[in-house]
Each structure stands twice: as structure tokens, then as C-alpha cells.
């Protein structure tokens, strides 16, 4: 009767898989995330402390050392750290070490992510998202908070045919379901 008292944390989408002939859907591994608010004059200090230059241009992201900073608003970023094996508090600690005025909230467990890849990935997401996902308007590295069906998501293009969909964990079941529908439609309309 060993280890009965040891709880293991399950991802909200653990075991989910889906897609179609042109789209692959999978749950992203656990990652550390913070929601970061910084005034313009303190952006440089936070960039230095986090090791990533916080992007200041709308709809852009920056990556370094497994960390990605996504521009959400003029003073708002989502930081994702995929370098660790578990979820620690490295991002919170790094932000604190900056010594500059900021607001950081650990949202590692609030969000989960779905990786959408394949030639029909953009079509699958467009099943519920009104944004123009052509490479011209939404190039690799572009990111945006937007709407997907009934839920809010943060969308990041990681490659020409791959996206990361960040979604609140309680909405993840819905998001995955709608993506599955979109994936099926993308394969039909090919």
C-alpha cells in the first residue's frame, strides 16, 4: 500500500489526441507561465531579468532559452517557459529579481495548451477564430489574444503549419472539441 497519499497532477487534457488527415492535435506538455504587466519604462529591466526581450510591437513574440514572451497588450505579456521538466517558480523569481515595478501572476495551472499542426492547421483554427491566419498577416512568431468559438484563447504561430493554442483549463475540453470538428472540416474541404 505504498504511495497512496501521493497525488500526481494530471494535465486537463492528459490522454487527449485527435485530428484528421491534414491536422494533428495534441496536448502540450506542462509549462510554466506568468501573466506580466510592466510599464514602458521598466520593460528593459524585466527583459534583462527574464532573459527575453519583451516585444513591444503588436502581435509579435520573442523566444530565448526555452522562454517565450507573447505581446498581449501595450503593457501586458504572457511568458511561457517550456525549458523545465516540472512547473517551478523560475519565472516569478526572475521577475522579482528585476527590482523594477511590475505585476506578475503565476498562471501555469490556469492555462493549458493544445498544439495544432499540419497543412490544415490554420483552417482548423479558423473554424472558430475570426483572424486572418495567412502567412502574410499572421507570420511565424505572430501571437494574439483572440476568440475561438465561445472561449478566449492566446494563439501563437510556432511554424508555417503549426500553432500553439493557449486556453484556460476549464475551457480546454470545449476548445479541443471544436478543434477536432475544425480538423475534420479542414480535411474534407482540402
Amino acid at each position, binding site marked *: 500500500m505504498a504511495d497512496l497519499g501521493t497525488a500526481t497532477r494530471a494535465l486537463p487534457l492528459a490522454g487527449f489526441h485527435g485530428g484528421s488527415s491534414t491536422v494533428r492535435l495534441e496536448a502540450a506538455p506542462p509549462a510554466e507561465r506568468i501573466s506580466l504587466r510592466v510599464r514602458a519604462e521598466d520593460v528593459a529591466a524585466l527583459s534583462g531579468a527574464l532573459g527575453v526581450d519583451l516585444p513591444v510591437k*503588436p502581435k509579435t513574440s520573442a523566444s530565448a532559452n526555452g522562454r517565450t514572451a507573447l505581446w498581449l497588450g501595450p503593457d*501586458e505579456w504572457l511568458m511561457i517557459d517550456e525549458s523545465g521538466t516540472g512547473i517551478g517558480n523560475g519565472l516569478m523569481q526572475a521577475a522579482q529579481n528585476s527590482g523594477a515595478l511590475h505585476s506578475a501572476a503565476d498562471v501555469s495551472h490556469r492555462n493549458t495548451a493544445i498544439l495544432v499542426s499540419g497543412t490544415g492547421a490554420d483552417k482548423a483554427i479558423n473554424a472558430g477564430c475570426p483572424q486572418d491566419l495567412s502567412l502574410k498577416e499572421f507570420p511565424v512568431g505572430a501571437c494574439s489574444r483572440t476568440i475561438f468559438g465561445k472561449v478566449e484563447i492566446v494563439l501563437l504561430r510556432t511554424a508555417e503549419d503549426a500553432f500553439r493554442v493557449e486556453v484556460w483549463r476549464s475551457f480546454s475540453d470545449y476548445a479541443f472539441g471544436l478543434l477536432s470538428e475544425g480538423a475534420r472540416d479542414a480535411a474534407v474541404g482540402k
Partner: protein
Amino acid sequence: MLLIHCPYCEEDRSELEFRWAGEAHIARPENIAAITDEEFAEYFFLRNNEKGLTYERWRHIHGCGRFFNAARDTVSDRFLMTYKAGLPKQPIPTAEETAAIAEEKTVETWEATEGDAR
């Protein structure tokens, strides 16, 4: 799909990402404790609800999250312009500029090009 220009994202986005947030350019009285009930009601409850050109606050809630101001025609539902919050009331584009905007944004619908209403 109605597109709204967000002055912070510097891009046209779907109306689905936005929320209406009431009339714009309503200044809070500086001496709010001293004003009469009628003056407070005027400031707090009463809105012009104009037909035609109105100045409104909108929020890009499912985008950058920012509030901004927009000049909108409530009859045609056309956005004449949007500008950042905190700026004074902006002059409306002239008729030629508005026509140019309309020209640029006209979408060819099936009804206009193929249907009986042509």
C-alpha cells in the same frame, strides 16, 4: 463580419473581439460631493442616445484588452474612425474622406453582384 480598427493593435479585427462600453467623453465632475442630485443624475444616468453620429467607448476585450474611443454612425453602423483613450474628441473625417473609407471597405456581397437586388 464587421471589422473594427483597434488603435493599439493597429489592425482591423472582427467585432467578435470587442465590447461596447457606453458613451465617450463624459467627464467626472471634479466637485462630485458638492453637486446637486439633479446634476449628479445628469452626469451619472442620462445619456444622449443620439441617432446618427455618436462618440462611444469600445473595449478590445478579447485582444489587447484596451479601452478606446470610436466615432460611429448608429444608423448605418459604420465606424468613421477610432482613436486612443485619453485623446480629446477628434474631428470627424470630411465627407470625401468618409466616402474614401466606405469605398475601401465596401465588400461585394452575393446580393450586390449576383442576386435579384442588383
